[in-house]
Structure formats: C-alpha cells, structure tokens
C-alpha cells in the first residue's frame, strides 16, 4: 500500500530530515512510527500523504510513484488519504460541521450527501452534539477528534495521523487510540506517529523506529 525505497528528504537550508529510509506498509496494516522529537516522523508521514516530495528515493502509494506525479495528480491523491495534523489545521472562522465538510466540498459532493456524511463522521468521534459550535469552543481532545472526523469523512483507504495523542491526558489519549484501532479493524491502512509508550502498548501494532532521520535497529 505504501512503500518507501531509499528515501531521503533535505529541506532548503540543508537540514536532512530523512536518510536512506526503506519501509513497506501492507494494505490494511497499522504501523506506528516512533522516535524522539526531530527524528523525522512528521516528514515520513507527509511524504506518505503527498504533502511533501522526497529529495531522492521513491515513495509509492496505492501503486503510484509520487515522484512521477504532477502537482494536480498529487493533489487528487491527497483527497484519498486522510491526514490528522499535529497542529490540527482547523479553520476557526466556521463551524465544526463546515470544517469537516471541507474535504467533501473539495471533492465536489452534493450538499445533502455531504451533510449526511459529515454528521456520520462527527457521530463516529462523539461530536455530533457540537456540530454547530466553533472549534474554538472545543477542548484540546475534542479538537483532535474533530480533526479525525475531517480525515475520515471522505472514507479514505489510508489514514495518517501525526502525534494524535500528543498533549492529551491519558483518558483522552486512550479514546483516540481506540478510534484508530476501530478504523483499522474495518480495513483502513493506518500510519501514525507517537512517542507515547502507553498509546503504543494499546495500539499493539508494528513499530517503525526513526533516529536522526534513519531507521533505527529494530
């Protein structure tokens, strides 16, 4: 489903975030990327989601070599990948409903069908009652769940989450981890990063450890 072959990523200014990383993630698998802060976890996830491009090596998602895709094709691939951002990237000038509806609007879904799917996604993360609220009014954990609702509303086959349990207390973190486990159980390929041991234990999945941008010894 997702293949990294000798992937390196250098940012302008020379910082090398990833070096010679090769990882295979099968369809329907759940994988946790671990490592200390700055190990390259976020970069790996962004490359898998088509948000950034590799400097060298090859990233293949759903059989498509992302390096060979043009800007438009890459954008269309991003529609099929759900991404939960570490900094949420919610829009605070509109309601929870409209935030979750954004990917459906981009996909051009009709208003009624979109509203139905938005409500289903909000229900899944337990925020249906807050549909009309502004995200500012939500707690940190609720904002995280809103972000997850937005990532799953388009029913992606791949769900990627960057530190979804960061800055959450243990109860909230557990609820979030359970959500990802439930998505994986219905066949969604899940790739998430975390450095929280409790969450890792609860996920009970394969781990890919990064250290200084390189794969750490298993």
């Amino acid at each position, binding site marked *: 489903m997702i293949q990294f072959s000798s992937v390196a990523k250098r940012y302008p200014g020379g910082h090398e975030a990833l070096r010679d990383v090769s990882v295979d993630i099968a369809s329907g698998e759940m994988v946790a990327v671990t490592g200390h802060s700055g190990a390259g976890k976020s970069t790996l996830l962004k490359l898998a989601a088509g948000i950034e491009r590799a400097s060298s090596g090859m990233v293949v998602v759903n059989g498509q070599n992302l390096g060979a895709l043009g800007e438009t094709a890459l*954008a269309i*691939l991003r*529609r099929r990948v759900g991404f939960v951002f570490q900094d949420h990237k919610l*829009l605070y000038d509109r309601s929870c409903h409209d935030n979750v509806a*954004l990917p459906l609007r*981009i996909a*051009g879904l009709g208003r009624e069908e979109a509203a139905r799917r938005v409500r289903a996604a909000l229900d899944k993360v337990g925020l249906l009652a807050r549909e009309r609220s502004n995200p500012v009014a939500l707690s940190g954990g609720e904002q995280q769940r809103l972000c997850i609702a937005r990532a799953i509303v388009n029913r992606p086959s791949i769900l990627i989450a960057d530190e979804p349990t960061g800055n959450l207390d243990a109860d909230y973190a557990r609820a979030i981890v359970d959500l990802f486990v439930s998505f994986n159980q219905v066949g969604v390929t899940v790739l998430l990063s975390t450095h929280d041991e409790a969450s890792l234990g609860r996920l009970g999945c394969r781990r890919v450890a990064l250290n200084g941008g390189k794969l750490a010894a298993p």
Partner: protein
Amino acid sequence: MTWARLHLLALAEAMRRFAAQPLASGFSIVVLAIAIALPVIAAMALRSVGAAAAGIDTDPHVNVYLALDASDEDVKRVGEALKAHPEAAQVRFIPRAQALAELKATSHLAEILATLDRNPLPHAYTVRVRTTAAERVGNLRTDWSKIPKVDQVLADFEWAGRLGRWVRFGNRLLAAAWLLLGGAVAFIVGHLIRLQVLTHRQEIEVSQLMGATAADVRRPFLHHGAVQGFLAGGLAVALASGLAAWTGYELRALTPDYGMELKVVFLPPMETLTVVLGAAGLGLAGAWIAVARELKRFSVKA
C-alpha cells in the same frame, strides 16, 4: 463532477464571499464603476459632438462675391468662368435679393435690414470645389479674384477641417483613456482579489493539504473577479446613462437656437454590452494574475 457543476459551486462560493462583506464589496464595485464610467462618458461626449458636426455641411465650398455694380451680363459671364474651372464641382448662384431674404429669415437683423433703403448684399456664387488642400484653394482664390467684377473670394471651410481634426484628436484621447482606465480596473480588481486571497490564506492552505488543486483554489476567486467586473460595468453604464439623461434635457432645449440637432448620443447596445463584458473580462484577468502570484507563495511544499 462536471465542469459546469464545478463552476456553479465556485460561483456560489464567490457570492457567499460577496455576501460576507457587503459593504466592502459594494465600495469596491462603486470605485470600479466610476473608473469605467469615465471613458464611457468621454465616448458619449465625443459621439455627441460627432453627431452635431455631421449635421453641419462640411463639404468644401468657396463663396465668390460679385461687385455691387455687376450687371446681369457680368453675372452670367462670371458663372460661366467658374463652371469652366476644373476644380469646380458644382456652382450655385445666389441672387442678392434671395441673400437678403435669407438673412432676414435666419437672423434677428430683420428690423435693421428693413430700415435700409437698398440691398447692401452683392450677387454671389457658392462653388463646391474638388479640393481642400490649402495650396490649391489658394490658387483658386487667386484665379477667381482675377475675373472681372469679382469683388471677394472666401474659402470658408477651413474650420470644418479643423473640427474633423478635433474629433479625431478626441478619439485618440479616448483610446488612451480606455487603455489607462482599463489597466486601472484590472489592477484594482487584482489588488482587491489579492486582499481576498490573504484573508482566505488559511483556508487555501488547509484546502490544498486536503487535496484542492491550484484550479480548485483559483476558481472561486476568478468568479469573484468576473462578477465584480460585471457588476461594476453595469453600474458604470447606468451612471453614464443617468448622466446622459440629465444633461441631454438641457442640450435638447438649445437645439432651436443653433439650427441643428443637439443631443447626447448614448453608446449603441453592442458597445454597451462590450463595456459590461469587457469589465467582467478585466476583472477575470486581474483575479487570475493576483491568485497566480499568491498561489505560488502558499503552495504546498510538495
């Protein structure tokens, strides 16, 4: 999703953005409308002058006045000499009695003229000539002045040539105004759209992360620019026609005094449509340039 549906959604989004800032949108449209109305009004003024000038006989004529003591025999002889000249296209005789009658009819001098004991006007010929070139007209005057019993030769049409030149000068000025103000409209719309883009920068960034293509991001802004231009063009035409109606009333009242039809000529329907659609086009162009520039800045680091 069909192309039409994509654009319908983008148009709806553009209208939503209009509605979200009604005052700012309204002011922008008024500013644009004034910029577009200026050349429309200038074009109207030029057309009006052109129309009035068209009512004036601008064919080149030379008037040949005979001496007061010219006999009928002299009149006939001068007429034949004029007709024989290669530059004369048409020769018309105006007897002195007719000239006096015409003068009494068309001016307010009737009372003074009535006190005269004899007709002060000479016999005259009006000759339509084949040339307006100053040198050839000069030669004509020299030739015809030499005919016995010819008192005066007046080539009285230089002003008509000058009027034509003024109208052409006005047309050039108008073309320059269209160019400058058209550019201004594109830049104003571009600037307004750029502000819009900056206002929506977070939404654009998140949308791009969620898979919006550059075209998806651009589309509502293009509709916004085009609609803004279209509305401004419509308002400009409305402003100009309002002005035409307002000033036209006074001008028409002057018509009898000048013996020619004076009126404000509004642009014909096709040109009016061109102004409105052209404004929409300029709005679109301005939006395109502004969005392209800003998209480059915000593009997902892919």
